[in-house]
């Protein structure tokens, strides 16, 4: 198991290198540049700025310079947010997004898993149909509809919670964005959990467990739940990475200083170092969380554990 983990971490290095390289050249291949939005710069001024950021050098040379600095942990200055380095922007934005995302996922797991189990145990009854209808709604209604509605109702109409803002992560400010982030995840998790349960409930070994005379609670807890979690675990890794690196929509609507908006703004403004920095962090998170989810598989299923030697 330790070997497996180390091997996977080792493979992550070339993977990250490839992702970084591809993003670097793709960004440069896109038309436009970081200073196109500045109003009518003198050609000489533009020339000076480009030289200051090494943008006048041949592309390969820029790549080597970037790589050299990145290996030392310096992802360069942001070209648009003046006076901020990429590392600083990430240090400001990532904790906000990660805190929101992680809380939302935790909530989604609690509610989604419970709803999925109840739906599966009452298959085709009223409660099952109700849960699945809500789940379909949760998947179908986009967050740019849900988030303003939440703000409108709880913020303006009931005046219970702040409409927007971060306020250093006070819990009152977190409630609405966390709910808006969690809703679609609840829906997906509930569906995955229900599907996993229904499949396992039909299997021969559950019939064996019942034939032993075990009561239903024990059958579910000891024989059904663990194998039924497997489809969910595969989804959780990438989903957590996605939700922790921020959602542009939620961050814009609730005016939160997360990393999602930097990413999108960076891409629109051709802020090369910022986009690259965020892409590499996102990739590293995905790789790491996928590893965690593979380790969780091994925890659930001894057959997988054995294949990890």
């Amino acid at each position, binding site marked *: 198991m330790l070997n497996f983990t180390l091997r996977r971490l080792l493979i992550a290095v070339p993977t990250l290198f490839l992702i970084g390289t591809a993003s670097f050249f793709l960004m440069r291949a896109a038309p436009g540049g970081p200073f196109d939005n500045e109003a009518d710069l003198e050609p000489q001024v533009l020339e000076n700025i480009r030289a200051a950021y090494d943008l006048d050098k041949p592309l390969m040379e820029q790549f080597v310079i970037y790589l050299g600095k990145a290996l030392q942990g310096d992802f360069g200055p942001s070209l648009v947010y003046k006076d901020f380095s990429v590392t600083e922007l990430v240090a400001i934005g990532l904790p906000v997004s990660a805190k929101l995302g992680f809380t939302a996922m935790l909530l989604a797991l609690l509610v989604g898993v419970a709803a999925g189990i109840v739906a599966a145990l009452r*298959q085709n009854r009223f409660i099952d149909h109700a849960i699945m209808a809500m789940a379909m709604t949760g998947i179908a209604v986009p967050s740019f509809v849900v988030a303003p509605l939440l703000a409108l109702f709880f913020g303006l109409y009931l005046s219970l919670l702040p409409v927007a803002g971060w306020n250093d992560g006070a819990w009152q400010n977190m409630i609405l964005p966390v709910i808006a982030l969690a809703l679609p995840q609840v829906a997906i998790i509930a569906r995955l959990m229900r599907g996993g349960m229904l499949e396992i409930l*039909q*299997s*021969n*070994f*559950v*019939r*064996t*467990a*019942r*034939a*032993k*005379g*075990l*009561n*239903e609670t*024990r059958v579910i807890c*000891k*024989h059904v739940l*663990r*194998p039924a979690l497997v489809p969910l675990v595969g989804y959780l890794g990438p989903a957590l990475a996605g939700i922790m690196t921020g959602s542009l929509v939620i961050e814009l609507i609730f005016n939160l200083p997360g990393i999602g908006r930097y990413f999108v703004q960076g891409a629109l403004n051709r802020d090369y170092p910022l986009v690259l920095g965020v892409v590499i962090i996102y990739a590293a998170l995905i790789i790491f969380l996928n590893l965690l989810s593979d380790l969780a598989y091994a925890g*659930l*299923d*001894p*057959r997988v554990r*054995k294949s990890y030697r």
Partner: protein
Amino acid sequence: MTVLLECENLAVTFDIDQGQINAVQDLSLTLSSGECLGVVGESGSGKSQSFLAMLGLLARNGRASGSVKFRGEEILAANRRRLNELRGSRLAIIFQDALSGLTPTMRVGEQLAEALRCHEAVDSAQARARAIEMMEIVNIPDAANRFSAYPFELSGGQRQRIMIAMAMICRPDVVIADEPTTALDVTVQAQILRLLDGFRRHTETALVMITHDLAVVAGLCDRVMIMYAGRPVEMAPTATLFDRPCHPYTIGLLKSMPTLRNDPAADLPVIAGQPPDMRKPPPGCAFAERCALAEERCREERPQLRQVGGSQQVACHLVSA
């Protein structure tokens, strides 16, 4: 010999999208202690479903009606709690596919011990000791270590032995073996059958052997019930059945068995045709379509199971008492 299981007019139906399937009908039988009953029929003849129904193990869309009594107590309508008390401790079942029949995420020893612990007041050390003892009885080598093995770490034969040990660990009165050897190769088959037979002889357990292999029946069972299209068509002591089969279906089955006297060059005789569609069962004898002797009456009127000779029962119009 005490009567353990009495089953009267058992019927099993499944609700499906296009209506209903009558998987089992008019099944009546008794089973006494120490007896071995063979139940023979092709796939879909209802042989497994009838016994699953007796233990309340039908799939969600299945329903059973009629009467099943265990030691005089009606169990078909029993509540879940009473059923759980009986299942595993008094009435045990061995399923055919031991690979999918054991929980893949649980150690086999725990699965064994669990069967004991839910019926008897033993602590975990005692349960563990009994589980290992059972594993030794069913000839699992190095049982103490194999206790913590997972199902995928055992061979097919060993998994089937675990299933048998699991069924036997509470010394049940009735054991239903649902094709326990179909998934195994022939040499392992023989060992498993010997094991089951040994158990029955030592413990006075009644054994129901569900199979489509007549050779298994001949070697093991006292009595045989032949099922076709959800109904018993013939029931007789094993020797009588092989000497003097009455139902044309039974005769066909026996003829299609390879023996040492068969001409190796000749094709084995087969029963032509298919069993009827269970969604639209014919009004008369279900076997009439495939029966060379069928008359007008066979297609119109369903034959009832009736006594011929001393201990033989047949459902066929053409057999005279």
